[in-house]
Structures are given as structure tokens and as C-alpha cells.
């Protein structure tokens, strides 16, 4: 590999995980730079996991001031108003995360993610958008795709006791162990824009309902100019209206998306901490895989719903139509 040895300190600290993914993967991890925006419960879990894993640096973006609500499902903010008053979520979380692993550089980046130039993203190997708007997710994903180096792009969203992860690794090569042999594999990921515009009709029926439901919520928030979690039962008629339109446009029956699921997604605005731990855990595992180049990555959506307990991956791309 790149010839640089892990230090004795790193070998001692990372002993148990090196036994899982090997010293080369650990070396790649220590050189990776991760950008994270939108720091609520699930992203907090994600940050903890990658800081412990020993990535090179984590850059946090979230200019929201800490308030009572941000304490929910977030163990990085001590509930002391005197300590957090006037500080942003990113600043407070940065302080706590630094403490988890002194070998990881954790810093705060101020400002709005969606207005950043393409060059800004070049500094990173991984970009994670938590609870972003449809427009932000599309824009950042396009910028990442314009760069000559590959920036792994992820979005994550949790509502009620459900979670969604989206992954774009563009053209991704990895090695897979088949029996004793190592096999070179290649995957082609669609962009976020492509993945959310796949016609619904050819998508297999057993596909997670959450995929469709989340698209309805996305459109609702976009149309109404709402931020994540700014909704209630009062919005259900509007949401159902959007569902009807989308189903008609895609020539599928409205029963494709259960109303009860949409109701859960717009009323369960407080994150459920066990689901944050699960989805944040899966997301971190995927980022570790992508950075280390070890193991088959998730393509390209992951859904978890505590109600049925299933954590499924769905490959949604235009391959259904071709």
C-alpha cells in the first residue's frame, strides 16, 4: 500500500477493528476526510461511529442554535443551558466529538451547504447530508459528481420510527472475497436526481413502500417550503393530494403508498433514539466500506422501519426500464 505504517498507538487503540477490516483499511480510514451537515440524532450516531473508527477528519455543518429540541436523541449536547446558549449545534457537537478520539480532527464549517462552490467539496472524500431539502440534496450531489476525484455522497433522513439512506458512489470498484478468491467488481450508481426520478411503474412490487412515501414527503416539503419536521396531522390532506398526483403521473394505483405510512411520517416528528442508533450505525458501516474499499457497498437506498423490524436495501435505478 502507501507504505505508511500505523503507529503503535493506533494499533493499540484500533486493535479490535483491525481484526475486522485489516490494517490497510485502517490506514485508508485515517486519511479520509468527511463532511457532515444537518446534525440531529441519526447524524450524531453516525459521527460518533466514524470518529471512533478513526477517520482523518470530520467537518461539521449546522448553524442552528442549540435549543431544547436539539437535545432530543442527541447525546453530544450536555443539557446545560448556560453551556450551550448562543452556540450552534455544530459547535457543541464538535467539542464532544473531539473528546471521543483525540486522533481525529473535528472542526466546524459555518454557512449554507447549498451555496458552496464545487471546489469546496473537493477537500472531502465523503459528503453526508442529514435531513436536507430536495433542492440541496440534488445540488450538492451534482457538484460532487463534477469533480475529477470521486466523492462518496450520502443522504440520511429519519422520521417517526423509519429511516432512509441514499448512496451515490458513482462508478465504484471494489474487491469481493468469493470463497478464497478475490474478485474485482464494479457498480454504477445513479445520481440522486436520477434515483428519485425513476418511473414507478416498472419498480418491482415488493420494493419498500418507504421509497415512494419519502418521495411524496420530499415533494410536499419542497412545494410548501417546509424544513424537516415542520409538519403535522393538519398537513395530511395536502400530502395525500400530492400522493394522488404522483401515483397518477406514474400510472400506479394509490394503494401503492399506504396513507397510514404517510401519516406516521408527518406526525412522528421527534426522532426515535433506537432508530437513530440503527440507521446511524448502518450509514457509518457503509462509509467505512466505501473509504476502505472493502466489502460490497449498499446500492443505493436503505430502509429501516421499527414497525416490521426489517432493514432492507433497494437498488433503484433506471435499469428497471431498460
Amino acid at each position: 500500500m502507501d507504505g505508511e505504517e500505523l503507529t503503535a498507538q493506533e494499533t493499540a487503540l484500533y486493535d479490535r477493528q483491525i481484526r475486522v477490516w485489516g490494517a490497510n483499511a485502517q490506514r485508508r480510514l485515517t486519511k479520509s476526510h468527511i463532511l457532515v451537515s444537518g446534525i440531529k440524532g441519526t447524524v450524531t450516531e453516525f459521527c460518533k461511529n466514524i470518529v471512533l473508527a478513526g477517520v482523518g477528519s470530520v467537518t461539521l455543518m449546522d448553524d442552528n442554535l442549540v435549543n431544547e429540541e436539539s437535545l432530543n436523541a442527541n447525546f453530544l449536547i450536555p443539557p446545560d443551558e448556560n453551556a450551550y446558549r448562543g452556540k450552534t449545534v455544530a459547535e457543541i457537537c464538535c467539542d464532544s466529538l473531539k473528546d471521543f478520539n483525540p486522533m481525529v480532527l473535528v472542526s466546524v464549517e459555518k454557512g449554507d451547504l447549498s451555496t458552496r462552490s464545487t471546489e469546496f467539496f473537493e477537500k472531502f472524500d465523503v459528503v453526508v447530508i442529514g435531513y436536507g431539502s430536495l433542492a440541496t440534496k440534488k445540488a450538492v450531489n451534482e457538484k460532487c459528481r463534477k469533480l475529477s476525484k470521486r466523492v462518496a455522497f450520502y443522504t440520511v433522513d429519519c422520521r417517526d420510527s423509519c429511516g432512509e439512506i441514499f448512496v451515490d458512489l458513482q462508478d465504484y470498484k471494489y474487491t469481493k472475497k468469493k470463497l478464497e478468491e478475490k474478485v474485482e467488481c464494479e457498480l454504477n450508481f445513479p445520481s440522486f436526481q436520477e434515483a428519485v426520478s425513476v418511473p414507478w411503474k416498472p419498480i418491482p412490487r415488493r420494493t419498500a413502500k418507504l421509497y415512494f412515501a419519502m418521495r411524496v414527503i420530499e415533494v410536499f416539503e419542497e412545494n410548501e417550503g417546509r424544513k424537516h419536521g415542520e409538519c403535522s396531522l393538519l398537513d395530511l390532506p395536502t400530502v395525500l393530494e400530492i400522493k394522488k398526483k404522483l401515483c397518477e403521473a406514474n400510472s400506479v394505483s394509490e394503494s401503492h403508498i399506504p396513507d397510514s405510512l404517510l401519516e406516521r411520517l408527518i406526525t412522528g416528528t421527534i426522532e426515535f433514539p433506537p432508530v437513530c442508533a440503527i440507521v446511524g450505525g448502518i450509514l457509518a458501516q457503509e462509509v467505512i466500506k466505501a473509504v476502505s474499499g472493502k466489502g460490497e457497498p449498499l446500492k443505493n437506498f436503505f430502509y429501516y422501519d421499527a414497525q416490521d423490524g426489517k432493514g432492507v436495501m433497494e437498488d433503484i435505478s433506471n435499469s428497471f426500464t431498460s
Partner: protein
Amino acid sequence: MDTQQQQQQSPVQGAKVLMVGAGGIGCELLKTLALSGFHDIHIIDMDTIEVSNLNRQFLFRRSHVGLSKAKVARDAVLRFRPHINIRSYHANVKNPEFDVDFFKQFDVVLNGLDNLDARRHVNRLCLAADVPLVESGTTGFLGQVTVHVKGKTECYECQTKPTPKTYPVCTITSTPTKFVHCIVWAKDLLFAKLFGDKNQDNDLNVRANKAATTSKETDDVFERAEDEDIEQYGRKIYDHVFGYNIEAALANEETWKNRRRPRPIYSKEVLPESLTQKNGSAQNCSATDDDSTVSSMPLLGLKNPQELWGLTQNSLVFIEALKLFFAKRKKEIGHLTFDKDDQLAVEFVTAAANIRAESFGIPLHSLFEAKGIAGNIVHAVATTNAIVAGLIVIEAIKVLKKDADKYRMTYCLEHPSRKMLLMPVEPFEPNPSCYVCSKTPLVLEINTQKSKLRDLVDKIVKAKLGMNLPMIMHGASLLYEVGDDLDDIMVANYNANLEKSLSELPSPVINGSILTVEDLQQELSCKINVKHREEFDEEKEPEGMVLSGWTQSPALNGESASTSNNESASTSNNESAVDVTESSSGPEIASKKRRLSDNDKRETENVESEDDDLMEIENPITVSKKKRRVA
């Protein structure tokens, strides 16, 4: 807060929860419980914090190394949730104070343990106290969460768990074929012989020298005269165990008919005449007072624990490590036991195992790898623990709401099975032939004339049945018990019984005898039907006895399938469980089944995982359960 969240909160806020284990899963679990609104959490863990914990046990910092895990975890969680009640116990869950009454105060028990023994103990106490148990385990990217509610779902022991692998004695002493055999030899025989209790039984010489010398002479080899030079002593040991013993073993032609013959190795072939001149500073090198950091590696210019050492390097480490034990840690000699966190012990065992491996033509391993095998180190990452902790809390909330139809066992998979990375499975009903929760008698085949009561206590009652404070009765006659309240005469009696063969006991145990074995702390009692048998196969039955009854034979499996199906027809059959079990078997799950059933037969080549008791990821069991469950 909306109504749904409130519904989730109320049973949670009133609940009193016991967590066993504050390690990898425990740290994540305590955090998630606190965030989820649990207000009253008790946590037991006997361990203290080590550096290698810090990559995933995120409540701990470097400054906490050496402190109680339970206590530090409590303090760390109170920093972000100051108003909840967390009580920590820095103690072994098997201690008598944690009795059935202690367990009864809790609404649910959550396990985040790292060993089979403690898991079984907690399972029994939960059954006795009638408190639901949510059990968990992780290895690398694999994990599982299961729910055990007395009378409703199977208990933790309804399915046999693979117990840590034991190896036939002669494989270890004479005919190793895998590196793990060399490790066991170096750790349990050589290291124990040199640095452990001298009075312990030790097979180190017995077999190799049966023909050549008497055991008295060989014992003398290990005795070091007061004025004997340490290096000379080290070379003498080296030549004896790697040279002379191998040569003596080679004399027995019968052994090597179908085996590769080992090569005797003497120190003069691989090492210069005197090391002391070259490394004169060895004995007064930078002295530190901390025993666990004494190391031979800097002296020899070895840095990277992942590097493979050749025969010469291993031989140098062997001699230097041995010298350092005598130079720096003389006081401990005679009562050392191998500890994976003892650097010098790991170096010595790695070197000895590698020299033996070289002799037998087995590939050598790095210190890092050898340490993993010798210490039964569990592969662990933070993410799996976090996911499993989340799943535990989800099940715990269902248990508190008594939502029995929704209980699930969930498996975290590394490779998706039918698109699933997290796979829920409906829990199974209690196994009617489980000796723990259904009190089914066991059958023990044993040579009642040759086997001593001690063998029965150690190999069966403690090792197999997992009893902590056992009592053994034959009819009305009490043969053995353990406890603080025994008088000296009783203790002497029991000790005398331990050394007797079963048929010589005051109340002779012979073919057809029925023993009652009880653990008062676990409130577990079981009957053992004794069958006399003359001979045992040393390779296949190294313990010299065979316990059966709780292991289901295939025929039994079929029977319980029909029972289970009849019963499940009357209980509500949840849709999603059908979904999982109907199995439109893709290629992945098919290959998985094959791999797992191989694993079940315990013939995998992966020695590390065989030894790893956390490896009871129980997927093989899921498969058999599926068969049992599917109509």
C-alpha cells in the same frame, strides 16, 4: 409530543431495567436507553477499562483506563441525562448477592455480555425470577438480538450453544496440525509449566517422553537452580521442548505412519553461542514498574506486531522474554496465568507457538494474530454494537408493553439476505426438551469405575451445565455441594468424595443411577440418568464422557416441529414472520445455509472463530428453527 410518542414513553418511564455488561454493547445500550426516556437503570459489570476498548466503548476515555466500566459508563451518561437514576455495580453477575430476589425487582433484563457462561447464568435467574430477558451478541459486522419470555418464547438455552472448542490432549501434546494447537500448547502447557502453579497437572512431558524417561527426570528440567544463569536455563528449556521432546516423540514410529514427521530444533542451530554478550543491556534496560508493559521487542529491534518473525527472531524472543520474566517479574513466577493484556506473556507464547509450528511444518503467525487466537479476542466494531443496542431497546419497549405478538429476534448480516441487512424472525416457543426451562432429564455416559466425582463436577456440572454453586445428590445422599455455610467436616467429606470414582462413592453411582444436580442460586435443578460405558474415543470424546439429552437429535427435531406447528396455529401467526420463513431462497441464502450448516458441524477451518464464544451468532440455529416453524 404526539400521542404515539407518549404511548411509547409511558411504559418506558415507569420501567426498572437491569443491564448486564457495560462493554461494547453496554455503552451503546446505556446511551440509547437514556435517550429513549428510561429513568431507572441498573448496570452490572465486573470489568475495568482497557485501551483496546476505547475504539468502540465511547463512554470511556484514556484517563479512565483501569477504572470500573459500570461506574464510568454511568457517570458519562448522567452528563447528558442528569436527572435519571442509574445505579452501577462493579461486580460479577454470578455473585450470590445477585440472587432471584434481586432479579425480581426488574421489569426486563438486557444482556450485553461477552461469554456463554454468564449468559446462561443470567438466563436461569431470569427464568427463576420470571423476568423477561433481551439477549444480544456481536462479532465484527454480525449481530443478533433475541427475546426470552418464560412460557412464551424459547429460553436462551433451548437450543444448544457451541461451547468453546476443546482439543484432544494428544493433538496438543504430540500431533498438532493447526496453529491454534501450537498456541494452546504454548499457553496452557509450556507457559503454565514455567510460570504458573507448579503443582498443577500438566501433560507437557507425559506423552512425548512416555518411552524415553521417567517423569521425575523431566520435571527436573523445569526446575531452575538458584544460581543457574537465566539464559542457560532458557536454552535448556528450549532444547528440551523443541529438540529432545520432538526426538523422543519421533521414536514412536506408529504415530508418524500417516503424518508428517516433525523436525527437532535445538537452540545452537538457530542462536549464536551467547546472547548475553550481544545484548548485555538486556537485564538492566529502561526499567518501568508496570509489569504489563515489559517487552522483549525493543531489545530485539522488533516494532511491528503485524510482522511475521522467522525462526531466529522467534527463538530470540523466546529466550529474551523468558529472561525478562526472571529479571523483572520474578515474584509473579509460580502464580502467573496467561492474560492477553500481558505483553510479555503474549510475546513468549507467540514465540513458543511459532517455534513449535516451524517444527511441525505449520505456517507461522504474527504477534498480532497469535494474540487474537491466544486471547480468544472478539472482533468488534462500534457500528454493529450501536445497531444491536438500538434493536435491544426496540424489543425491550415491546416487552414492557407486553406486545408479545410483535417480539422479534433480529439478525444483523454482513451480506444482505433477500435484500435484508437487518432480518427479523418471529421467536420460537419453548423447546419441550430443554433441560433448563422444561426440566427434561439428561443422559450421561461415563465410566463409573474410572471417572472421579471431580471429573463429573468439572467437565459436566460446571463446564457443560454452567452451574456456579452446584449441589449433587444421589437419592437422599448428598455427594457434593459448594457454599460458604459448610462446616469443616462436610468440606472434608466432599473433598474426599471428589477424588473417588463414581462407583466408590458412599452412595455408589452406577449404571442406571439417577443424579439430581442443583444450583440454588440459579434455582435450576436437573436430573441426570447415568449409563456406564467402558471406552471412549480419545479423539472424538476427549472428555471421556458424553452428556446428551439437551442436544436435539434430528428425529427429535422433527417431532417438535409438529408440536410447534399445532401450537402456532392457535397463537397469532404474524404476517411478517411468514414473510421471512416462506423464503424465496435466492442464491445468497442458499449458500448461506450451506455454509452455516457446515459451521454447525464445527468443521470450519477458521480456528479463531471456533474458539470465540461470541461466534454463537446462532444463524445455524435460525435455519433449523425455520424448518421447525414453517408449516
